[in-house]
């Protein structure tokens, strides 16, 4: 299988976004890909949202820390540089509040508002959005040849991509001005009668949540309006970055049926939002020597052993699944999607050495590469 396309992608793009369901090895692949690019001599930045804590610790990363270089020692040779950051949603959100609130007083009011404290990690999916904002910073800063973004698993990744648009709608619909402000003002002035449509609607909501809860929420949303405006401006730039030809999208899938299904959904969402799909990584597949020995078995009798039978079934599910998945993707004959089959690694990717070895899975000629 020709995997030179991965090297070409890494050379052509400034940003690569990895999408995929939970448990397919997206974080490992992001790291492996980033390290492969760094070994080629590039200055790479990797943004990870949800890496396994032990892996992060082994690489010297802690949540919420700014970009930190992952340094490799002999015999793990890296010509370029790899920087990584593990995003902590709450800290990033606090950061954003500090950055976009109109003044310190408002920022403090927000950070100490009991709604914020109770629910800041839930506010309209900010974690993913914050990652995008951070990505934008990294890209605009121009300190990296390549920025790689490891997204949250599955459906959150979809929210992630459409976030800039959602906030645009929020603003365009003038929810804040139209709905909340009048309600807020009416309450402030102690006006009992709600006459505008907006106020009627808010009154309706109050019957569900209770008036005090709603007042609190309204007050909070007013405070945070400027911060939302700030996101908005970043959002437009983020969308530009994501839509530019310098950004590539990779899907990570495993070789199991449920993974093919999730991946198909993700691929469709990419298409619906007019993002390109530059390639699919089929990760954690059966090692080649095993599938080959199964294919070359002279008759089914050798495979009668229960464990061999299981491996046979797995091999077939993988082969058929990959073939069907690619066929579905390539229904448009003009765009054949590149793919790479990455075999299951001998051990977990849990430290720098195992990560270094894993990064060779992304190279065209591992043997030649390692001699450099």
């Amino acid at each position: 299988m020709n995997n030179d396309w991965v090297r070409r992608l890494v050379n052509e793009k400034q940003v690569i976004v990895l999408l995929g369901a939970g448990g397919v090895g997206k974080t490992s692949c992001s790291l492996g890909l980033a390290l492969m690019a760094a070994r080629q001599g590039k200055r790479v930045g990797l943004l990870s949202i949800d890496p396994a804590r032990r892996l992060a610790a082994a690489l010297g990363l802690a949540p919420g820390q700014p970009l930190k270089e992952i340094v490799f020692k002999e015999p793990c040779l890296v010509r370029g540089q790899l920087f990584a950051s593990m995003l902590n949603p709450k800290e990033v959100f606090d950061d954003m509040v500090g950055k976009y609130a109109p003044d310190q007083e408002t920022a403090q009011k927000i950070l100490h508002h009991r709604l914020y404290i109770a629910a800041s990690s839930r506010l309209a999916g900010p974690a993913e959005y914050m990652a995008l904002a951070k990505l934008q910073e990294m890209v605009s800063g121009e300190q990296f040849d390549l920025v790689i973004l490891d997204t949250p698993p599955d459906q959150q990744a979809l929210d992630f991509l459409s976030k800039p648009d959602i906030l645009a709608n929020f603003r365009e619909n003038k929810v804040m001005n139209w709905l909340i402000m009048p309600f807020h003002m009416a309450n402030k002035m102690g006006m009992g009668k709600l006459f505008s449509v907006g106020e009627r609607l808010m009154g309706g909501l109050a019957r569900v949540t209770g008036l005090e809860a709603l007042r609190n929420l309204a007050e909070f949303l007013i405070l945070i309006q400027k911060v939302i405006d700030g996101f908005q401006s970043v959002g437009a730039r983020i969308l530009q970055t994501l839509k530019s030809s310098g950004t590539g999208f990779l899907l990570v899938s495993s070789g199991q049926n449920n993974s093919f299904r999730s991946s198909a959904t993700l691929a469709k969402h990419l298409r619906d939002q007019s993002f390109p799909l530059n390639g699919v990584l089929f990760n954690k597949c059966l090692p080649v020597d095993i599938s080959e020995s199964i294919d070359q078995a002279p008759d089914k009798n050798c495979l009668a052993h229960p464990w061999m039978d299981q491996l046979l079934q797995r091999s077939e599910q993988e082969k058929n699944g990959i073939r069907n998945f690619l066929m579905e993707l390539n229904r448009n004959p003009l765009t054949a999607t590149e793919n790479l089959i990455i075999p299951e690694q001998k051990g977990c990717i849990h430290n720098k050495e195992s990560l270094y070895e894993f990064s060779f899975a992304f190279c065209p000629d591992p043997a030649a590469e390692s001699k450099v």
Partner: protein
Amino acid sequence: MINQSMKEIYRNKLLSHKLIMVSGKGGTGKTLVAASLAKLAAEQGKRVLLAESCDSTQLSPLVGLNLASHQQTQISSHLFAINLNSRECFREYVEDHLGLKQLYRRVFNHRIMKSFVEAIPGLNEIMILGKICNSLRPDSDGHCFDMVILDAPASGHFYGLVSTPDAIVSSGLTGPLMSEINKIRQYLANPELCTSLLVAIPEALVINETLEFLEKLQQSKFISVGGVLLNRSYLSNENRFPQAIADIPDQFSAAKQYLQSKFDSFQDQHFILQNKLNSLEDGPGMACLPEFGVIPEPLNSAFQHRLWEHCKH
């Protein structure tokens, strides 16, 4: 700490709960466990609602019927399934629970109101939890489910789900919705009624994360943890490992090596997990579910039998 027999856990104590939430790291087999457990409970005569809440249904292939959004679908005489939609849960709450059908039509159907309501922190989670709790209460005809099994989100988002009632109650807000939320909080935290299962696989990073998550959940007291399931286990009494490996023809030496390393890894991780759980006061029990290679879709009774009969330490 007495490590209870899994048969005891699964046959008696576990299935006596009203609500079981199945979580764990992504890709470990939560959906499989939830669906399979629901089938088991239904076969024992319980009226079970198997639930998920996602944009793209995961349960459908395993139950053999397409679960359209928020449509309760009958799978068998005692088993029903649903893909919960938080917006629909909210509508049901306003229309049915509060009896405010007109209000819903006039106010919440408004396009802008919809997006505003979505933005209210924690509301989606509360609506999902509320719907689940409500399914366990008799309806106007006196019907209700004996049990709800939720194919819950993976660790991080699961924590977000179960921590929401507490977060809102702690915020000190009052009002009609608040007392409902407090009831939900108490219900979730009652270990006789509600519990969670954490699914893991025998990989070092997964075991590590599972143990950390277990600790976090137990400390939070939002919901009890009723068991840890080690899925994709290479069990020694299944096909008589390691003798089984020696029986494999030599032409498959690569496969032999692969299986041996899987077996060794399983032994190590199982040992680590077992030790850690044993060291906990009041820790959850553990069961091993075998590696199957390929899961039948839909789940069939032969598979069910193999999965639960071989629950081992």
